[in-house]
């Protein structure tokens, strides 16, 4: 399995995900692009500020990639996650997987995001017209 995991304060590039996971052995690439929304419960969001425990975040992402490879025939996993300030409409995370068949690729990419949100030590503080607060996971 090929792995490309990165945290970055620079804007994310979709094409890197596409180029990394594409191979002529894999008929299906599924790419998730997580975009910062401009509102939450009707309140306008001005920006998010992401903080990460970088070495542990990369280690947890690698664990997730291995969990995926145990369950689906995935040949490449790509995750780039932003740190620092990210504005509405910008990508906070781009995750991609490739697999010979599409059902596996969809399931694996959805699982990757579920797990990322459960275990990877990254935090976001949300800045709105009402103030700022650390986002807590919704069950």
């Amino acid at each position: 399995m090929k792995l490309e995991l990165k945290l970055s304060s620079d804007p994310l590039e979709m094409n890197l995900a596409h180029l990394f996971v594409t191979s002529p052995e894999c008929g299906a690439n599924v790419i998730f692009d997580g975009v910062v929304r401009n509102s939450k419960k009707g309140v306008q969001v001005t920006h998010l500020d992401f903080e990460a425990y970088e070495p542990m975040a990369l280690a947890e992402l690698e664990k997730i990639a291995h969990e995926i490879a145990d369950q689906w025939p995935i040949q490449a996993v790509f995750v780039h996650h932003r740190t620092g300030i990210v504005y509405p409409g910008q990508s906070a995370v781009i995750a991609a997987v490739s697999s010979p068949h599409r059902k596996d690729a969809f399931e694996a990419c959805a699982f990757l995001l579920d797990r990322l949100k459960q275990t990877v030590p990254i935090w976001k503080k949300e800045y709105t017209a009402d103030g700022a607060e650390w986002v807590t996971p919704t069950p």
Partner: protein
Amino acid sequence: MENLNQITVLCFGKAREITQTKSFSLAIPVECTVGELRLMLCELYPALNNDLAYAIALNQQYAQNETMIAANAEVAIIPPVSGG
């Protein structure tokens, strides 16, 4: 006199704001579990326990309360994560 280990505690997100620092040094007993560390942190920073259900990582791995903290461990306070 009891033997002590010096550890570094990293603070992230809301924990960083509560402790008002990205990291601090702490002297803990040579035989000290994660659960015992939590009690010490609670005394140092009561708001940690009141405001936050946090995890503890040892050397960049999630740790259980029973786990013994090794000398020179990198300890981190991990508030509920919200990446993605």
